[in-house]
């Protein structure tokens, strides 16, 4: 039934946004994670990309997380010779996470999530009303 499909599609959208939010949480939590050894790489920012996916059994166009990739941007360097991860010249590589970018991304994920939730609520309303026609 079409309305069940709509519910499943909205659920897939919410799931994809949840994964996105999880990755944002990882990025924010690790925004100060440097390498353990001298010259080692710090935490590299993760990125999420979405893709549409046709479910063959039902013909629904769902959404899924296509790939959790890595941000290839260079690591910012900071001069701190006393740091355990400092290289021979005294520079430490810090994670390429920008908390402003992450927070903006989080807002967007939140908006998309609540849009999907709204659609789900409306769909539920349609279903309820259709069932009430039996009375």
């Amino acid at each position, binding site marked *: *039934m*079409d*309305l069940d*499909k*709509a*519910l499943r*599609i*909205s659920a*897939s*959208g919410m799931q*994809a*946004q949840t994964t*996105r939010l999880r990755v944002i949480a990882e990025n924010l939590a690790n925004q100060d994670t440097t390498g353990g050894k001298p010259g080692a790489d710090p935490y590299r920012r993760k990125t999420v*990309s*979405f*893709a*549409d996916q046709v479910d063959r059994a039902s013909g*629904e*166009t*769902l*959404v899924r997380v296509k790939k959790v990739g890595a941000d290839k941007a260079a690591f910012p360097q900071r001069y701190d010779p006393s740091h355990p991860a400092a290289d021979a010249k005294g520079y430490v590589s810090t994670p390429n996470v920008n908390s402003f970018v992450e927070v903006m991304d989080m807002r*967007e994920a939140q*908006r*998309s999530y609540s*849009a*999907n939730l*709204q*659609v*789900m609520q*409306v*769909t539920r*309303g*349609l279903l309820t*009303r*259709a069932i*009430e*026609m039996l009375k």
Partner: protein
Amino acid sequence: MNPPQIGLFDLAEQRLKWLGARQGVLATNVANADTPNWKARDMQPFSAVLARQTAFSAGSPVQTNSMHLPGTASPIAGGQTLRGEHAPDGNQVSLDQQLEKIAQTDSDHEAVTAIYRRYVGMFKEALGR
């Protein structure tokens, strides 16, 4: 199908089916609101679907002579490709637009079910129940 034979039940059923399908299409748009290169989709208007199935347009005046003035404004073309903002990743879904359409679908659905129930109520009345 013959126009006079179309019962209100049939019409309501078709309309509800169409609204359900549209809700599915709009849900897909919202779910893919962050998918690169996704273009918003929509259904053909119900009047067009009905006209194709029954060779008459629901409730609207029919032009029986080309010299007659058209009774209604010309229908909106297609509705498949939507002009709107264009994200850098090629996504063309405007959440506002989609949610507005969903609200429209919701209220249409409410109207159809209300009419349906009233119609059933009339039957009950006639049957004395």
